[in-house]
């Protein structure tokens, strides 16, 4: 499985959130993982509206795609959790284009960091360790809760729901894999 490509697709799905990019990203996810929902029945407008209701706004999002919401004691964005992720990115040479304009622990950025680490790991073994840590100690802890909350609020959606399921499964698999890997070593 082309993991970096999958991560890229997940990332784009959550980062751009617009019909065309949702469709494109979903197609890629299907190509990498196999068998997506049949695309004839999909109402892409509905998917876009659902996406915004869940993650963007302008109403208070039902399931913001930011780690702090699920991890910080008061759900405080730009608090301790965001600061830790910022520090982590800095330690692996990544930063936002404009520090302070968005929280670093937004899902799309975290997926991008994962993608970057996987690509880096091909040359630098320590990157694989960082990747495993990031999944085990961070993503694996908040993403399942996030996807569960989001799924409560998208009864009519096919695509958004499917992507949430796949994302959650993927994170859990990766966590499982890395744990396994550690055990054998």
């Amino acid at each position, binding site marked *: 499985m082309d993991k970096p490509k999958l991560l890229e697709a997940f990332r784009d799905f959550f980062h751009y959130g617009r019909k065309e990019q949702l469709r494109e990203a979903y197609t890629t996810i299907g190509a990498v993982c196999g068998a997506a929902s049949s695309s004839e029945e999909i109402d892409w407008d509905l998917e876009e509206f659902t996406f915004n209701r869940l993650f963007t706004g302008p109403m208070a999002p039902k399931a913001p795609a930011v780690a702090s919401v699920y991890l910080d*004691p*008061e*759900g*405080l964005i730009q*608090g301790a959790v965001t600061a830790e992720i910022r520090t982590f990115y800095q330690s692996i040479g990544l930063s936002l284009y404009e520090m302070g304009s968005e929280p670093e622990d937004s899902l799309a950025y975290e997926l991008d960091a994962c993608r970057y680490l996987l690509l880096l790991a091909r040359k630098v073994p320590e990157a694989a360790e960082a990747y495993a840590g990031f999944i085990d100690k961070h993503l694996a802890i908040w993403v399942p809760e996030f996807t569960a909350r989001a799924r409560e609020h998208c009864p009519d959606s096919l695509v958004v729901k499917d992507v949430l399921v796949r994302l959650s499964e993927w994170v859990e698999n990766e966590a499982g894999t890395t744990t396994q890997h550690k055990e054998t070593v």
Partner: protein
Amino acid sequence: MVNSKKCVGCYSCAQACKNQYHQEPGVVWRDLTPIATKHYPHRERAFYSLACNHCDQPVCAEVCPVQAHVKREKDGIVVHSAEKCIYCHACIDECPYGAAKDNVVLKRAEKCSMCVERVDAGLKPACVLGCPTKALTIVDLATLDNPKAEQYPPGFDKHEALNPSTRFIRPMAPKLALANKDS
């Protein structure tokens, strides 16, 4: 010193504390208690701003199994170190003033420590600086010389064994001249 005569119940102190420490929704270290109408005649028009009373004989320090509550020699602040907390609930249950707050999410007790980091840096606690009417002040009990300062004003429970350090000035009520009906 809580001067309820000056206090206008504006909640700036309570919010200044939240602004400083970012406690989660539902966890409030300083809050306003409206004084009941049996003690003050007008509903929701007089308040005691209360957090931790930094007692002379703090029960929290007594019952804490890991010494997370410690009363400082130099200024009497009862400092709470939340990271030491093992969530045994003893202080939460034992403090009759409810100063030890139950943080069910982080699973630990939390308490006002009089902004000890600010105090040590020569700054005022957030609530004291943040009070627009100067109703909250830090006083030295050793030199306090105000005949109006009370330890147990009406509506504030007496716990002499603890000997709370907070002092109060009572609110005043106005003379009234009331038109009966509006019409």
